């Protein structure tokens, strides 16, 4: 009994110390820590506070093609041009994904204002390459600040590294394990290699030119997976739909285009089958759950991608504008103003982008 009393006294002392420290920390140091450890948090607060429509995306929003784009407007910039009467803000950072968007929703102000969230659905972020990316620990560290908890508690979590802090090697192992163990020839899919690991080995030891092998390797790693409800990112998206419903937020997903042409060129239907299935899976799942889904998955041509040798969603101005238009049409079909797309994508005649398909054709590689 005596011991319990002594422990209790010390416990109360620690609690008292915590609240006093929290008071001073919130007042003097927390804003500096936010600026230092979570540079995006300020942008999120501003975007939620000021936007009627908040666009949340990764690098696909702001990337541009240096060979062709005279105008470097982001997708959200184009949206603002199409809907000048609406205040559109954006939260964009490279390697953002649904897990982080979900945490950002904690920062939505409870001010009774009607908001629309436009969230990028990027198929690749649901695959093992992105899920087990080495950048994830720093993303998760930043995400500690996307919460309404006591500031000192957030600082303690930061000091104690209380977040998904797996190091790059651990993530690398999980990625290899995924490629080694997940069957690719289930649910009616046909694939003679069975797993990504075996497929990659075939690519590595094939007698095709190196250029092709590198590209095929990257495409298989990024797109050869089968989505289902157990996928972490899918679960995050599910949570987002539920949370937005609960908070009365209008939610719109837009499924990004994927460079299907090159996947087709490299491996024909063998790789495309997974991409098409995953795109349908995402579009159907969230339409059924009541979110608006804009499906731009097939609306692209290989020439519109900035990265020609590696699959990304870095799109040229023409495609960014088309995506913005499709989103705006879904949001406010009668409020779109006319913009002049012909001046928004004026190729620079001085430089020509080396296109992967030209190179592959020259090498005589057609599947």
């Amino acid at each position, binding site marked *: 009994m005596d011991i319990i009393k002594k422990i209790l006294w010390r416990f109360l002392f620690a609690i008292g110390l915590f609240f006093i420290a929290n008071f001073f920390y919130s007042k003097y140091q927390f804003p500096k820590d936010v600026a230092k450890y979570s540079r995006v948090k300020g942008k999120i607060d501003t975007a939620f506070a000021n936007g009627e429509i908040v666009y949340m995306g990764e690098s696909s929003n702001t990337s541009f093609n240096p060979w062709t784009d005279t105008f470097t407007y982001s997708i959200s910039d184009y949206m603002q041009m199409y809907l000048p009467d609406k205040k559109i803000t954006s939260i964009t950072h490279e390697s953002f994904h649904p897990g982080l968007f979900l945490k950002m929703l904690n920062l939505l102000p409870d001010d009774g204002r009607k908001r629309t969230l436009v969230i990028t659905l990027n198929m690749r972020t649901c695959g093992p390459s992105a899920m087990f990316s080495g950048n994830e620990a720093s993303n998760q560290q930043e995400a500690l600040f996307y919460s309404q908890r006591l500031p000192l508690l957030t600082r303690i979590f930061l000091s104690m590294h209380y977040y998904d802090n797996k190091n790059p090697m651990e993530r*690398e192992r999980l990625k290899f394990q995924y490629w080694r163990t997940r069957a690719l020839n289930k649910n009616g899919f046909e694939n003679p290699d069975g797993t990504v690991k075996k497929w990659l080995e075939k690519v590595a030891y094939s007698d095709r030119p190196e250029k092709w092998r590198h590209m095929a390797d990257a495409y298989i790693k990024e797109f050869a997976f089968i989505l289902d409800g157990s996928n972490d990112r899918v679960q995050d998206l599910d949570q987002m739909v539920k949370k937005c419903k609960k908070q009365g937020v209008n939610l719109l997903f837009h499924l990004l285009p994927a460079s299907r042409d090159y996947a087709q060129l490299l491996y024909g239907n063998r790789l495309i089958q997974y991409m098409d299935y995953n795109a349908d899976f995402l579009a159907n799942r969230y339409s059924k759950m009541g979110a608006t889904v804009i499906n731009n998955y097939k609306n692209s041509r290989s020439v519109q991608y900035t990265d020609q040798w590696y699959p990304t969603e870095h799109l040229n101005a023409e495609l960014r504008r088309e995506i913005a238009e499709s989103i705006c049409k879904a949001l406010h079909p009668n409020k779109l103003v006319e913009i002049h797309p012909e001046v928004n994508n004026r190729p620079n005649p001085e430089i020509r982008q080396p296109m992967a398909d030209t190179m592959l054709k020259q090498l005589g590689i057609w599947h």
Partner: protein
Amino acid sequence: MASYVFYSFWQIEFTGLMALTTVIDFSCGLQIYKTTVKRNKLIWLWLSIGSNIAMLFMFKYFDFLMGDTPIAKKLYDSNFTAWMIELGKYVLPAGISFYTFQSISYVMDVYRGEQVPEKNLLRFMSFVSFFPQLVAGPIERFHHLYNQLHTKYQPLWEDLRNAARLLIYGLFLKVCIADNLAEIVDTYYQNNAAYTAGSTWLATFLFAFQVYADFFGYSLLAQGSALLFGIKLMDNFNKPYVSKSIPEFWHRWHISLSTWFRDYLFIPLGGNKRGPLVLAFAVMIVFFTSGLWHGANMTMILFGVSQGVLYLFDRFIFSKIKLKNQVWDRFRQLKTFSLFMITLVYFRSSTIPESSEVFHSLLGDTAGSLQLHIPVFVLILLAVFIILDLFIVRERIDIWFQKFHFSIRWAAYSAMILCVWLLGGAINHPFVYFQF
């Protein structure tokens, strides 16, 4: 049971591995005790040692030694063995080097007749897996830990109070000193060629205190956690940076490993009783093995070998100079610290070329122009730690704290807690010794 649950939180597969090692060593211990034929005892002993070495080889050294050989490729083709290779290549089973050594020490003690084997497997498992010291030591001996583990637990206020002190100070060392220094040292090592020679010296100096605060902090946390259950673990550090020679240093640094090597490798190899040649041979073998134990990497082997060379230099040459004055003693301390600090370049570098670049830079051979920056608060924390640890505190920290008046003690605890809360390093740096 609790220890196994704790361990499985990280990777459930590793729990099976630890259980397997434990069962093998438990059985070998019993067989060694039962058999009266010396040759059979030896067979059981080597079966136990061999199985432990095989585990270490598969999970720790396979990739280093086998790399891309056809055998490695064949093993990676089978799902049954591929997971082992992946685990070994990317994430070492936590504490494998510690619990295998702890288990080997038990079997060796039984073989030597110094220990009666445990007949209850569960009780033996609790010895191998005792969670506070499972992942990074101290490597305990059976006779020291076992009796404490199976004595009825009676919470004592004195133990709880000391445990809290150890935990607070351990956290302070890890979170405030080691993690903050790690950020600076990592910044240097990410682009070491771009820094000036002065910055290289600074990074090397800071790393010496990072690794010390990190491992010393861990050891205090382990001792504190164990003391919450009334169990006293051995001290793993005893002011190593005030040592006057490398032999003395290794009596003060990672004491549980040094004594393990002394008892189970150095003495069986001949120790210091059979002349200088045998001694030199034994020392070099011990430090080579110690380097390899630290990591499956050439840099770690060089770290071990360099310690061996310095040890012999001190033992055969430097110790011959017999001077008795304060200045000479201080010089020896400085020399020992500096030599250890410089050899830590091997410990920190990932590759030989990287360590060689750092050594060149230490000698002024660098074109880098960047200066390493230390935040003021880190400088203050480090200064406080150095003054306390090297110059003021002579005993274990919980014992030292007892001397002070209540108000001073509590002010110190509060300051340390606040530092942990407010000034902890932001980037996650697992305990350095977790990788071993």
